[in-house]
């Protein structure tokens, strides 16, 4: 087995993202957990598992700088007790998740006019619960429309968890639908993320994890 090349340096601010050599893709692969995002100018890939969460994959199609995020909107109390500040907190949280990544791309040489967007996730993998995946999809579509960005491909909704592998340098993406054996693990990861983000609203600040 040939030794993998040296690991390319991450952009400042992304040192904490776990990266390892992936034999199958013959590339370094950055592993995103729920709530994280990663932007790179290197020839490497970013991957994550999605249940009801959303990943936006955005890149400058000319320079190849780009990244992936992984987020969901914080839960709001049941429909009856819906308060406007909860809804606005959820939207602000989503906006931040998108803006942080786009700003990093622009900061690292990307141009807004060159951005292409791909969207994944928002599945409904637990039957019967409120469709949080759908809410995430609606949010991100609206965000993209308001920002005047173009979605070049997407695979959202449905009832399956997904593994998304994205190469910002080429824009290539591989979406693998995961067997149901992985459902509970994916749900577990997303639930503990969901618990983290609902505990924060009273401060008024939005914090990404």
């Amino acid at each position, binding site marked *: 087995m040939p030794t993998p090349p040296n690991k390319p340096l991450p952009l400042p601010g992304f040192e904490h993202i776990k990266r390892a050599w992936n*034999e199958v893709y013959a590339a370094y692969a950055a592993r995103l957990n729920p709530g994280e995002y990663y932007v790179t100018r290197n020839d490497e890939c970013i991957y994550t598992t999605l249940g009801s969460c959303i990943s936006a994959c955005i890149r400058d199609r000319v320079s190849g700088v780009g990244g992936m995020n992984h987020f969901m909107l914080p839960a709001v109390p049941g429909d009856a007790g819906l308060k406007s500040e909860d809804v606005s907190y959820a939207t602000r949280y989503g906006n931040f998740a998108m803006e942080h990544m786009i700003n990093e791309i622009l900061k690292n040489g990307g141009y807004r006019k060159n951005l292409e967007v791909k969207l994944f996730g928002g599945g409904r993998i637990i039957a019967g619960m409120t469709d949080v995946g759908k809410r995430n999809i609606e949010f991100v579509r609206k965000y993209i429309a308001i920002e005047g960005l173009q979605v070049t491909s997407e695979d959202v909704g449905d009832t399956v968890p997904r593994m998304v592998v994205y190469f910002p340098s080429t824009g290539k993406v591989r979406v693998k639908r995961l067997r149901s*054996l992985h*459902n509970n693990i994916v749900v577990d990861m997303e639930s503990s993320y969901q618990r983290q983000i609902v505990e924060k609203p009273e401060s008024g600040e939005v914090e990404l994890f």
Partner: protein
Amino acid sequence: MNKAITELVQGVDNLITLPDVFVRINRLVEDANSNMADIAKVAGQDPSFSMRLLRVANSTFYGFPSTIDTIPKAVSIIGTSQIRSLALATSVASSFEGLPNSLVSMGNFWRHSLYCAIAARILCKQAHKCDPDAVFTAALLHDIGELVIFNRMPQQAKEVLYLVLDSADELPVYLAERQIMGFDHAQVGGELARQWQLPPMLVECIECHHDIRSAQHFPRETALVHIANSLALMAETQTLDQKDVSPIDQLAWQIVGLDAGQVIPAVVGEAQEMIAEAEKLFIGK
């Protein structure tokens, strides 16, 4: 045999029991002095099994031209050895209810197993030279070791699944299990089948479904279950791309004498069409 596996399986001995109707029919099938009437009598004494048997016999699985309305008729048309397979297949899901776990829902677990069973049965009919009902049952049971591991070793099992996802789903589950636990679910399932004294064909299919080159007595049946497992994953995740699922050993295709390109789309499609009915018949939903 790995001591850890034997102990693991002995630990669940009192939690899962083989269905009585299977044990009794099995004994009769093995007994040269018994006849069809004996088997029909035993089958008829279990009302729940009788009902399931008649439902399966009249389903599209068999597609018999006339209605099968009595147990003796079912036994004579379907065959005694096949009735034994059905006795196991229609009751195995309920016998594992005493072995709950928090990693996979029983519904999802048995759906994959059934997809595999249906695919194996279709492949078997095309490949000839083996008993479709026996292969169906072997495939239905192929992952039972997973239920033992999930129940007895939940922490390690969780680590296994995390490791698989960390590899971007490129590392097969059984290899992740070997890495973390030193053995895999196929070995555990094989040992359980052996302790249950299931027919040797079932033991080998379960034990070798990821390692068909170790199958010494029933390579053909084992190869069918091995292929069916990957086709089941395709049916479940709605893909026809072999790269999306566990790789199929080329030797398996040689052994069964089928061509991957020719059979995969049809078998996956047919399994998808049959799954809902099969769940009603075998898992009792």
